[in-house]
């Protein structure tokens, strides 16, 4: 598997208190990688490291074959970036902002930018400080896409936007990925949105990567089990238990487990415990359970 982004044991401390420690992650080329985590988990800091805006204290970061931050210039020519907070210049008009951006990006596609501008309904002569939040989000996405990047790094790109604008942006993103096979690294706390979009997912908490896996694995492997009988007999199971809760006095329990497989049901039955139900968890539940399990283990 070729990787577009690789972090190897990266340490970084942006200030007092919070630190990224031993962060290792790899984003497969051509994937849409969802980067999940609660506020303050270190998602934006990880993105800043990825873009070469920060220098790690230890470890190695490789983006599109360039080691960051040393070779950032070469890598940035192939990266489209949409930041969490708009960073464009408010005194420029939409057209001027696009022109200024185009002057620095060798692969910028002006014709496509004009098409996207029409598609997004962006008024060309409007000053950026008069754009609505949705229009600003569209402009940021437009500029990032029209660079024809091999990697798109999106930091909470749809945060605070209405559903119509969100859909427009994500449609443009999916169309670009389908046409160009680009890699997308998208950070968000809108878990449901990522669930529909991503094929890989990384979970971040407290500056550490909790887990990283294909989306299908996360969705298929994490289950909620409804058990009846002597659950104490289920020692050393062939799956990991993320959370346990007792139900009533009859010895029943609800477990959330990871690494569930079809033959696990038989293993439970052999120990005299009845498996009453196996429920799928959506990404948000899976995400919350993993975070809880990690925090409980600390």
């Amino acid at each position, binding site marked *: 598997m070729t990787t577009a982004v690789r972090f190897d044991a990266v340490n970084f401390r942006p200030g007092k208190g919070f630190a990224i420690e031993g962060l290792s992650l790899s984003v497969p080329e051509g994937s849409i990688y969802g980067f999940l985590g609660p506020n303050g988990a270190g998602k934006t800091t990880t993105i800043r490291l990825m873009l070469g805006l920060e220098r790690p204290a230890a470890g190695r970061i490789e983006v599109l074959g360039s080691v960051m931050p040393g070779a950032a210039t070469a890598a940035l020519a192939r990266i489209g970036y949409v*930041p969490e907070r708009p960073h*464009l*210049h408010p005194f420029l008009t939409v057209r001027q902002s696009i022109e200024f951006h185009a002057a620095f990006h060798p692969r910028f596609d002006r014709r496509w930018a004009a098409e996207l501008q029409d598609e997004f309904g962006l008024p060309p002569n409007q000053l950026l400080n008069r754009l609505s939040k949705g229009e600003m989000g569209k402009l940021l996405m437009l500029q990032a896409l029209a660079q024809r990047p091999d990697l798109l790094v999106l930091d909470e790109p749809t945060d605070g936007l209405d559903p119509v604008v969100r859909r427009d942006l994500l449609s443009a993103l999916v169309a670009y990925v389908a046409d160009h096979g680009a890699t997308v690294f998208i950070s968000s706390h809108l878990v449901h949105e990522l669930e529909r979009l991503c094929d890989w997912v990384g979970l971040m908490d407290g500056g550490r990567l909790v887990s990283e896996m294909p989306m299908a694995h996360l969705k298929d492997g994490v289950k909620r089990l409804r058990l009846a009988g002597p659950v104490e007999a289920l020692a050393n199971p062939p799956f990991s238990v993320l959370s346990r809760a007792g139900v009533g006095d009859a010895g029943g329990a609800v477990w959330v487990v990871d690494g569930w497989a079809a033959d696990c049901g038989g293993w439970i039955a052999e120990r005299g415990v009845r498996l009453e139900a196996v429920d799928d968890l959506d990404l948000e539940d899976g995400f919350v359970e993993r975070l809880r399990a990690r925090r409980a283990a600390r």
Partner: protein
Amino acid sequence: MTMLRAMLWFHWRACRNWIVAAAVVAAGLPVVSLRLSWPRDPSQMASFLAQLEAWGVFYPVAAAIVGLVMAVIIWQADRRGRFVYAATLPIERWRYVWLRFVAGAAWIVGLGVVLWVASLVALATVSLPDTLRTFPTVLAVKFTLAAVSVFAIYYSITTLPASTTRIASRVVLGLVVLQVLALLLGVEGNWLVAVGEALIGRWGPLALLGGRWMLIDV
């Protein structure tokens, strides 16, 4: 070239109010100084020159303000965005800093041209005796170089890391406090004046701000 053009346009958008105001001053200074100093009686040329020399003080002041303000506002847009946009452009940082500098200096040169044209226009409106000579080009070049010097010095300071600037500011502040204390205690010597003189003295980096600034002289 595309990047420089984009940067020049960017600076125009970012600083156009200031550039227009500076252009009005650059255009007005030679015209107004000549109009107000011009004698009614042609025999009073000596007092005319003295008045024009008095007006000459405004040229270095204007040049210093132009250079200083240009250096301050040139980074304002990037500072507002915490330099994220600039730092994520696929261009080496030294090159970006250089482009910003060249664009700022180019606008200052433009102001020098405005001053030169205004000086020529002002001179065309008066008829001078043969004993006097005109220096519109020298004045415009001196103005431009002085403004660019101030711009370059302050620009260099603003491109230093914030921590270095903080340390330098504290050192300067400390020296000022020490000087005030020294004055209060009756200790002789004024090193702030000495520093000022060293800066605009003959071999100082701001030497261009000193000397005479005359549009017309003997």
